[in-house]
């Protein structure tokens, strides 16, 4: 009985989680200047803090991420995910890591050969929304939260209908 109750509660909170509309980060927005730029640090190495994405399974954040993806002209280099000047985002190959915090760093810090740093330009909340969306491009978010098609010419299958592609690390860190 207890277990059933627990499962029921879990399902319920999952639904609430997915449908929350957060207009700001729970802890407010903070400057991303603190983002680590280098792995070098004084003293004994401390384990890197694992940063949880606040919006991983959140439908609203994913759709906002999708909107920002074209508003901030990510399309210009990455196209609709198929890649052009920049690498493809809808495949399983991840050069700089597929974890939310790694994608976050890629956006904020920029990467060699063209990916500019958006530090200070995109507030953390929107970066997290982009992170969640980028993960959905390869089908790596729950189907019930992933974005459906846009009211546009269709370039590819909507994220909701993409097969999940388990990430494969290809790049160097």
């Amino acid at each position, binding site marked *: 009985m207890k277990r059933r109750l627990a499962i029921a509660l879990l399902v319920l909170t999952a639904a609430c989680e997915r449908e929350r509309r957060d207009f700001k980060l729970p802890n407010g927005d903070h400057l991303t200047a603190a983002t680590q730029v280098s792995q070098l640090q004084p003293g004994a190495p401390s384990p890197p803090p694992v940063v949880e994405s606040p919006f991983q399974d959140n439908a609203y954040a994913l759709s906002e991420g999708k909107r920002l993806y074209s508003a901030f002209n990510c399309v210009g280099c990455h196209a609709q995910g198929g890649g052009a000047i920049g690498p493809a985002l809808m495949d399983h190959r991840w050069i700089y890591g597929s974890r939310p915090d790694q994608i976050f760093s890629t956006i904020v810090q920029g990467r060699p050969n063209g990916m500019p740093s958006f530090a200070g330009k995109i*507030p953390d909340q929107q970066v997290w929304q982009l992170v969640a969306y980028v993960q959905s491009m390869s089908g790596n978010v729950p189907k019930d939260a992933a974005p459906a098609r846009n009211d546009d010419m269709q370039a590819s299958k909507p994220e909701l209908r993409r097969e999940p592609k388990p990430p494969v690390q290809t790049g160097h860190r």
Partner: protein
Amino acid sequence: MLQSVLESAGIQAARVESEWWFIFRVTTVVTVIVLAGLAVAVRRGLRGRDTGASEQRMLRYIGIAGAITVVILFAILVRSIFTSRALASERVSDVMQIEVMAYQWWWSVEYQHPEPEQRVRTANELHIPVGKTVAIKLLASDVIHSFWVPSLAGKLDAIPGHEAVLWLRADRAGVYRGQCAEYCGFQHAHMAFVVIAEPPDDFERWIQAQRKTANQPQSPIEQRGLQLVQQRACVMCHTIRGTAAGGRIAPDLTHFATRSTIAAGTLPRTPEHVNAWISDPQAIKPGNRMPTIALAPEDRAAIVAYLEQLR
């Protein structure tokens, strides 16, 4: 500021207003007569005298009442069709064109001109010359919105993939408030705009001023403001012509300080309000597309100072 159907300031709204008073008077008289008839009937029914009235005779009266209903309705119909015609007669081709693009939850306004650099782009505020018909081309960038300035004209929907044109003419100078009238999401309530009808000379002066690029900042604090605007998140969305800011998804700020409101009519444009807005837009208009940006108070003050001199 006026936002009322019954205080018309333009030909289109005046026609509708006169139609309103016609129908209002007719229907009031009809209502009074029918309810009086009911009252008489109830009084008589309560006394319960057997009238012996034949059903035939009552049906005849019902028929007469029905016929009168038809005549009244027909009169209203004819009046309404004539008003429609009159409204349509305003559709002339050689008029000033303004393109209004509705976004979730603000209005982008563009004054058309054959030369691209002479086009004027502003937001949530239309200036029009008094006494001249303007054609407002309505487009929607995302969902369906509806453009409505009650004192000037009836509403017209802006539907994605469709183009609609609204002709209107202001006959009195003044500031008329308008608002989105089709439910469009979180901030449907805060999607207002103003129409400023002014004498043609004033209008000409205004549009000339709008064609210029943005003022250069003078004082150090203003200069610091510009620097911040160009370095921080502002540039991702806003355009300020003459600076590095060229984002196209949020209101054009080139002549920000000439406008009377911010956030699509949500707040009057005062330095305090602008400051409050930048510090936490989501508290003022939850769900709107401007994110909360972490800025030190003195940086915010600099940005406000810069914005306030964008005349």
